[in-house]
């Protein structure tokens, strides 16, 4: 006889709310006239994320191993990640509201008559909102998934909508579509790796549940070869998602090609989800064999930090620069995973929030700097931006300083705490390489500041569009969070320390 699974709807509500919002969005696409669609969609998206966020807060101190028949584990660590994803997604959605980011008609060939007709008709893709909500629901599931199948499903639910959205930039359509295709192909490969790894781990342990895998891994005398192979292959999938070297090569292209508002969302929220899941998998499932995988991760962390920083130096495109900077940050965040300690998790949480809001804010500002053909991403044309728009330039400078880890910004506290966790766990090499790559990375952050503040404007065609109320709100939120968490980190850090429980 088939028994119906026992679901704890209260604990699953945040995920379900977002999924529900996405479905409503799909209906809106079908039944509401074009004139109102965009407005209704944005309201639904914002309301959904806000409601889900409030729900996460209301259940923030609950713990359950069996929210969905052992497949989902609700605990402090997972809920913190969910809250972070929802908060960031909310702010990122504010930047979606300038309604000229997205292709008028995704199916029209770039440069074709259909496209021209769609532009003329003032058409705007609004499917983007339900797609984003679907991606968010996958992101919410990823860090709380407790078995391999759920992990894989969450990974796909979060990835597939992102592949589509990447191809929807309104301008430079070819670049955008190329990025989407690259992202999709490489993403599909990495998902396959992940799945294959999961199969091997299943073969080793005879179970899909992380808890059983842990017990199996800890059994002395077991033949670990399939477990280790499985870990390697699963790591490929996860490291691809966070953009760690050597699985990073898609990052600059995709960040550049995707609509800028989406890039901010993707860069911030995907990292939270992927790092949340990675930490859970490795500390709950594979901690027993840490001596085998940790050295590899140390090496990856080191090459990621150094590689991202070095590659960024020669970039001339602001989105690519930010992409390489996000690779460097992935390296720093890996240090938190490698620490495999409560301190590591806490500092990683703080780091994700600090980095996420600064990233969303930075990409949000990139959407504002334009000429007649659209966004201007060439850094040399940003010369003298501070003169044209001191407020925007100051905010961008603050985000860059936070990326660089200058004291009194959130980025500094994040870097400090994650290095401390790494040092305490005995990985001094990571700390040394970390500070050196920070120094290299600082060079290009400062160069951007130099271009904005100290160069004379050479190009009068670049303007900063007057941001709408929602966009201003979004930038202000990111600005305030970056500054306040830098000056008074207790606000978030104390919360993070109380939310480090991970159910075994």
């Amino acid at each position: 006889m088939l028994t119906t699974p026992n679901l704890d709807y209260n604990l699953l509500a945040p995920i379900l709310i977002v999924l529900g919002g996405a479905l409503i969005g799909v209906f809106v696409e079908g039944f509401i006239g074009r004139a109102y669609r965009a407005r209704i969609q944005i309201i639904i998206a914002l309301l959904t994320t806000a409601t889900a966020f409030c729900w996460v807060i209301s259940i923030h101190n609950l713990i359950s191993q069996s929210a969905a028949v052992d497949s989902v584990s609700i605990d402090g660590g997972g809920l913190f990640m969910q809250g972070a994803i929802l908060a960031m997604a909310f702010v990122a959605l504010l930047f979606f509201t300038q309604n000229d980011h997205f292709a008028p008609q995704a199916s029209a060939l770039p440069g074709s008559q259909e496209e021209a007709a769609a532009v003329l008709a003032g058409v705007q893709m609004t499917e983007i909102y339900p797609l984003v909500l679907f991606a968010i629901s996958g992101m919410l599931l990823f860090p709380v998934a407790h078995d391999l199948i759920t992990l894989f499903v969450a990974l796909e639910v979060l990835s597939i909508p992102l592949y589509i959205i990447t191809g929807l930039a309104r301008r430079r359509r070819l670049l955008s579509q190329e990025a989407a295709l690259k992202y999709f192909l490489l993403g599909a490969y990495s998902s396959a790796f992940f799945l294959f790894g999961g199969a091997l781990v299943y073969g080793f342990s005879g179970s899909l549940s992380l808890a059983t895998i842990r017990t199996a891994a800890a059994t002395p005398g077991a033949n670990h070869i399939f477990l280790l192979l499985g870990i390697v292959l699963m790591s490929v999938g996860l490291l691809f998602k966070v953009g760690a070297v050597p699985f990073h090569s898609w990052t600059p292209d995709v960040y550049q090609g995707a609509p800028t508002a989406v890039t901010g969302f993707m860069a911030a929220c995907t990292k939270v989800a992927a790092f949340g899941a990675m930490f859970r998998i490795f500390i709950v499932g594979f901690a027993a064999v840490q001596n085998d995988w940790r050295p590899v991760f140390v090496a990856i962390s080191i090459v990621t930090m150094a590689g991202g920083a070095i590659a960024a130096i020669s970039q001339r495109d602001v989105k690519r620069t930010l992409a390489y900077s996000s690779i460097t940050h992935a390296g720093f965040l890996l240090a938190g995973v490698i620490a495999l300690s409560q301190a590591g998790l806490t500092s990683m949480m703080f780091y994700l929030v600090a980095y996420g809001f600064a990233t969303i804010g930075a990409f949000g500002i990139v959407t504002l700097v334009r000429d007649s053909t659209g966004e201007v991403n060439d850094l040399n044309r940003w010369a003298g931006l501070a003169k044209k728009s001191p407020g925007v330039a100051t905010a961008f400078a603050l985000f860059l300083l936070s990326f660089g880890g200058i004291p009194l910004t959130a980025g500094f506290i994040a870097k400090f705490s994650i290095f401390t966790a790494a040092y305490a766990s005995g990985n001094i090499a990571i700390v040394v390489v970390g500070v050196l790559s920070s120094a290299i990375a600082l060079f290009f952050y400062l160069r951007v500041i130099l271009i904005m503040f100290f160069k004379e404007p050479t190009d009068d065609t670049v303007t900063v569009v007057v941001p709408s109320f929602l966009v201003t709100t979004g930038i202000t939120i990111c600005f305030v969070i970056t500054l306040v968490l830098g000056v008074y980190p207790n606000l978030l850090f104390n919360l993070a320390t109380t939310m480090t429980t991970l159910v075994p």
Partner: protein
Amino acid sequence: MNLLTLTIVLPLLGVLGLVAVPRENTKAIKLLALASSVVTLISSLLMLTKYKFGVQGFQLVSSHSWFKVFNINYAVGIDGLALVLILLTTVLVPIVVVGGWNEAENGRWSVKTFYMLILILETFMVGVFAATDVFLFYVIFEAMLVPVYFLIGGYGRGERAAAALKFLLYSLFGGLLMLAAVIGLFVLSIKAGHGSFDVTALSHLKISHNTQNWLFLGFFIAFAIKAPLFPFHTWLPGAAKSATPGTSILVLGVLDKVGTYGMIRFCIALFPDAAKTFAPYIIVLSLISIIYGAFLAIGQKDLNSLIAFTSISHFGFIVLGIFAMTSQGLTGATLYMVNHGFSTAALFLVGGWMIERRKSTQVEDFGGLQRITPVMAWSFFIAGMSALALPGLSSFVSEFLVLVGTFTRYPLAAVIGTTGIVLAALYILILVQRTLHGPLQAGNEDTPDLNWREKFALAPVIVALVLLGFYPKPAIHVIDSATSQIMAAAQVTDPTPLAGK
């Protein structure tokens, strides 16, 4: 509110006041900036009256939890060492404001921003010397670079943006090495039982010799870049060449002292064993700085770079005195920090006015100023004499103390260091001769002499130079109360006198 905290916060209140003033009203802005820096000065003088001699540890302490998880506190306090440097800061800022009354007019941004940056910088400068929490020190140490970056890049001349970037990158690179060491120190204190950043608690930590060496280097390189010590000095000439005179005074007079201050406060006090291990090498570097800086100064054609290179030579003396690790050396070095602050201030102030009048920074464009502008020429002469440590001016006392202190432990180093004095005479006298004496250079005929504002700004500096030269006892008394404690804590004793052997 604690008097020390008040002194730290007062310039910030000035910044808040400046926000309210419209940017066109430059006169009100300047007056408000001056007023708030003078109030800060008064507040710091009050601290001097409250300072008690012979008390162990820090005074006027105040501690509030800041970042709980890591036991980081807003912890401030002063000893003699910190007090004199804070006083140097608070005295120099009003002088910079008055002396450089018009220097912000031609900047990239408004006069208002300039004075806001100066006052923010003052808060950081007082705070960095007052911090007794290593983390707080680090935060301010790094954060204070940002206003300087904008001061050089926004209001300087020539290749100002490049100079500002170079300055910032050098300093941040050193700072990041120091961050690794700060983290290491903290983790060690956790392993010892109680995680803390308190500088006194950390000095009691037992650290293995090898670890101590690494942590020492992390701190030392950061401070050596700041100080600037050979071979980490290459950022300084560019920065000094491009910055406004006021900014140069603050950078060379105060900011760079954070480096030498940090060497005493952290390198020696926290890692005495490592300091003893590395002292001979560092003394070699400082001797190279003394002589190399002096030689380069002789060859400079640009007035500002010349002053910058003399500073490299003088910082060599300061570091020499510190790592001789004798009581005279340490006290002399600290006094030297103060004196160098005043003598560079005098050089940059008068030099800046000369450049402002002549619209040129090249030494060869000056000449015969003595006859045209006697007051300005005499001022420059006195400033120069103080830089070459003429007896009777303050630098002499400190240079003498440093050399005596070095001689008792490293006689050869002291002998080599003495040649620096001879070279100093050379670069200063050549400079004085080229700019002030000789035939009048074309273009200098109508140079006006110093006006009342300028005399008013310069007078306190000259008074300090002469006063500290003839009667350095009070300053030495204050400094000695701190250095003897640091020596005792680091378990260093003066070598026994050689006489009678």
